[in-house]
């Protein structure tokens, strides 16, 4: 997976690309670190993510934990295909703001 980020004030948008799996945990740690830098709203754009495995879902839960600690909100956008299905089956809309 690759990602790029765009920050405006306390809002940050991270656009991820490719496959989000167990092997991306180090990279996703960097994304989680963004939450420690005073960001209030982190938008994760999944429109270019084609696949997520259970480890990927687990990392999102970790991010959510960090967001709650930092009093920030995570918004997930653009999920489609396999990723959208995984969010639905795991009922991630109960935990995250999914747009």
């Amino acid at each position, binding site marked *: 997976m690759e990602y790029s980020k765009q920050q405006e004030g306390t809002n940050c948008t991270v656009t991820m690309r490719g496959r989000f799996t*167990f092997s991306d945990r180090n990279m996703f740690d960097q994304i989680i670190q963004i939450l420690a830098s005073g960001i209030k709203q982190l938008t994760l754009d999944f429109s270019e993510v084609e696949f997520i*495995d259970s480890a990927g879902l687990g990392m999102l839960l970790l991010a959510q*934990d960090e967001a709650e600690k930092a009093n920030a909100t995570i918004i997930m956008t653009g999920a489609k295909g396999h990723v959208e299905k995984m969010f639905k089956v795991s*009922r991630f809309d109960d935990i995250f703001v999914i747009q």
Partner: protein
Amino acid sequence: MPINDSQLFQAAILIVEDDEANAVYLTEVLEQAGFCNISHVKDGEAGLSAVHASVPDIVILDINMPKVNGYEFCTAVRKQEPLKHMPILVQSGAIDDNKLTKAFLSGATDFIHKPVNNEELLARLCVHLENQMMMRELAHFRSRLERELEQARSTQESLLPTQHALDALAKQFNLGVATYFQPSSEIGGDLYLVMPLDDVRVAVSVVDFTGHGINAALNIFRLHTMLYSINISEHSPGELLSYINGKLHKLLPTGQFATMFYAILNSHTRTLDYAMAGAPAPIIKSKRGAKFIDETGLPLGTREATGYDTHRLQLKKEDILLLYSDGLTETPSGGSAYLSDNALLKQVEKAAANADVLLKDLVSNRYERAGDAVPDDITLLAVQC
């Protein structure tokens, strides 16, 4: 992996050198440095006999010797498995580039000029001995780990019902039962259950913990203990998943969870009561075709206060309930190797209405599609009414 000095100084060093004076000198230098296990032979032939009798930790080798010279010695030992990685430190007087290349091509590990600079000799010797010892430690560690994983795998297999127990259950309840289990490494994070609850009802389930390997397998043992520490026949599927969720939420760190589908099949009325925690959607294959059980639910261990509902489906004679872990459909390579929902449904529809045949079809298709590598645990369970 630090090498301590006493290990290093006990290393077996073999000097293969026809010049007696030089051999004595080398021995003195090494002994003064603290090495205490040094032997000496006078030519390549004696050298070969010595390494065959007992493999030293390192050989200090002269090039120009009678009978078998240094090049021939190297070539001969590199052909033999136990000697392939034995370090050979070649020492020689005037040597041109061609001869040096020839020494390395023959299998020398390193080279040092004669007359030998004592400090350089000791420095090079220690580097190769330390490498050699670390390689040996690694190989030892690896073989121990492999043995332990093999034992763990067989312990984990003992959690699964035996073929004999499955056959007995199928006969008792007049059901067709087929299973397939292939962990990705020696041990895995998947588990399936097929167990009688009483004279009429059978519990079936597939569980998948995040990740695979040792950590996931340990979680499988935890879950297994949990399931057997309560009387599960007294609980509806929703109650059971809610109970396990509460327990796992306390045990698992954030980011780890389990997906689980748990159902109770009444073999007389053919009603299926089930609850879902984020597992891949099970499939009902009937005479009319195949369809997913489209139920959703948070994976177990994610949120403490999650409740799981029990749902009910009416099955008919010969209907097949198919449970599977995501290892069946998902592959890390992606692309054509990934099995879409539609493609999976079509495969199930097309297969013969028999639990055994259905699983065999799905398994053979999985390996044709995605190759022999198993990056994630694959678990399949089919029960036919």
